[in-house]
C-alpha cells in the first residue's frame, strides 16, 4: 500500500503519544500511604518524565499532522505553475494564503504545546502537594521549630 510518508510519521508519533499518555495516567494510580517517602519523589519524577516524553511526541505528531495536511495543498496549488502555463493572480494569492496558514500553525505549535505541558506539570506538582498536605494534616501539629521553618520556606 502506498502511503504518504508524512501521514505514516504522523500515525507513528500519534500512537507513541497516546501510549505515553496512557502510561502517565495509569501507571502509578495507587496513592502512597503514610508520610512522604523516597518512593513518592520517584513516582513524581517518573510522572514528570513521562509528561515530558508525551509532550515531545505530541509536538512531533502535530508537526507531522500539519505538514501532512498542508503539503498536498501546496503541491496541488503549485503543480504546473510556471512550467507549462502562466500563473494567475488568483492561484498565487491562494498559494500565499496557504503558506501563511502553514507558517501560523507551525509558529503556534510550540507555544500551545508549552502551555499544555505547563498545565500538566502544574497538575502533577499540585497533586503531589495536595497529597503532602493531607499527610501533614493527618500527622497532626508539628513542633514549633518545624512549623517555623516551614513558614519561612513558604515565604521565599
Amino acid at each position, binding site marked *: 500500500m502506498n502511503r504518504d510518508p508524512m501521514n505514516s510519521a504522523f500515525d507513528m508519533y500519534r500512537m507513541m503519544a497516546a501510549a505515553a499518555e496512557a502510561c502517565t495516567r495509569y501507571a502509578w494510580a495507587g496513592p502512597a500511604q503514610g508520610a512522604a517517602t523516597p518512593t513518592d519523589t520517584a513516582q513524581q519524577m517518573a510522572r514528570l518524565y513521562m509528561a515530558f516524553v508525551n509532550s515531545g511526541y505530541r509536538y512531533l505528531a502535530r508537526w507531522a499532522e500539519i505538514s501532512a495536511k498542508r503539503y498536498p495543498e501546496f503541491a496541488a496549488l503549485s503543480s504546473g505553475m510556471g512550467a507549462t502555463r502562466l500563473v494567475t493572480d488568483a492561484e498565487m494569492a491562494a498559494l500565499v494564503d496557504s503558506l*501563511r496558514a502553514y507558517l*501560523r500553525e507551525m509558529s503556534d505549535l510550540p507555544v500551545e504545546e508549552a502551555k499544555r505541558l505547563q498545565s500538566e506539570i502544574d497538575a502533577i506538582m499540585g497533586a503531589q502537594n495536595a497529597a503532602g498536605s493531607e499527610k501533614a494534616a493527618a500527622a497532626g501539629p508539628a513542633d514549633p521549630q518545624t512549623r517555623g521553618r516551614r513558614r519561612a520556606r513558604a515565604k521565599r
Partner: protein
Amino acid sequence: MTDVAAESIGNEPPPLHPVDEAVISRLGYGPDVQRLRTGLFEWVATASDEMRPQLQWQFCGRAKYFRPLTVFACCRASRPDRVSPEILRGAIAIELLHNVSLIVDDILDASDERRGVATLHRRFGALPALMASGYVVADAFRMLAEDAMGIRLLAELLRRLGVAECLQWRLRRQPLGVEDWRVLAGEDTGTMFEVCACMGARSEDLRKFGRLLGMLYHGCDDVGDARGLEALGGGGDEDVRDGILTLPAALAIRDSRIRAQFCKADPTVAELQETADAVRGRVEEAEVYLDGLADEARAEAFTRAPNPEPLFALIDHTRQLSRR
C-alpha cells in the same frame, strides 16, 4: 422624565422572542438565561432616573444573549456544578459591554434600527446614547468589584476591542488575504468570545476555543450578510462600499481585477456592483473554510475541556448562522 421613563417597568422581564427562546431552550440554558435577565432587569430598575429610559430601551428589547450562553457553556464544560453567582455576574457584565459596542457601532454607522426598533441614538439623540454607553461601562466594572479576574477580563475586552476596531478601519480597502481576515476576526469578535470563555471557565484553558468560536461567528455573519444580499437581489453592500475585509471578500480579491476595484477609494456604482457580485460568488468557498474553522474549534474543545459536549453544541449552533 420622558414618556419612556414614565412607562412602568413592571416586576418581570418581558418575554423572550420565540426564536431566541427556542435556541436558548435547545441549548439547555433556559433557567440560566432567566436568572441573567432577572439580574439585568433589576439593574435597569435601580439605575439613575435620568439614565433609566435609555437603559430600558437598550436592554429590555429583543436580545439573543449569545455571549452569556458562551459563558454558561464554558462553565458547564469546565466543571459539573451549576452557574455560580460570580459567573452569572460576569455574564451580565459581558452582555452590558456587548451592548456598549452595539450602541457605538450604531452611532458610527448612523443605523436607524436594530432588532426591529429604533437605535438608541435615533430614539434619544447622540449625546444621551454616548453617555449611556459610558454609564454602562462604569456599572459593568462596578458589578464585578469583588472579582479581580472578572475586572481584568473586562479591561482586556475593552482595550482589545478598541484596538481591533481601529485596526479594521485602518486596513480598509487593502489588498489583504484570508490570513489577515483571521487576524481581524480573531481580534474583533474573537476577543469577545475569548473573554466569555475565560469568564465561564474561570481559567485560561478555553481561551483559544473562545477565539476560534468568535472567528467562526464573525465568518458566519460575513457569509450570512453576503447571502442576504443575494436574497435581496443584489445591490451595494455596506461592507463592500467601505472596503471592509469580510471572509468572502478576502477570497474574492484574490482576483486582480476585483482586488483593484475593492481597493479604490471612490469606486463607481458599476464597480461596486461587480465587486459585490464577486463577493457573493465566493460564498460557497467561504462556507468550506468555515467548516474547517468549526473543526479547529471542535478539536480545541475536545483537547481542553473536561466535558466538551456543551461546546460542541455551541459550535454547531454558530455554524448554522451563515445558512439562515
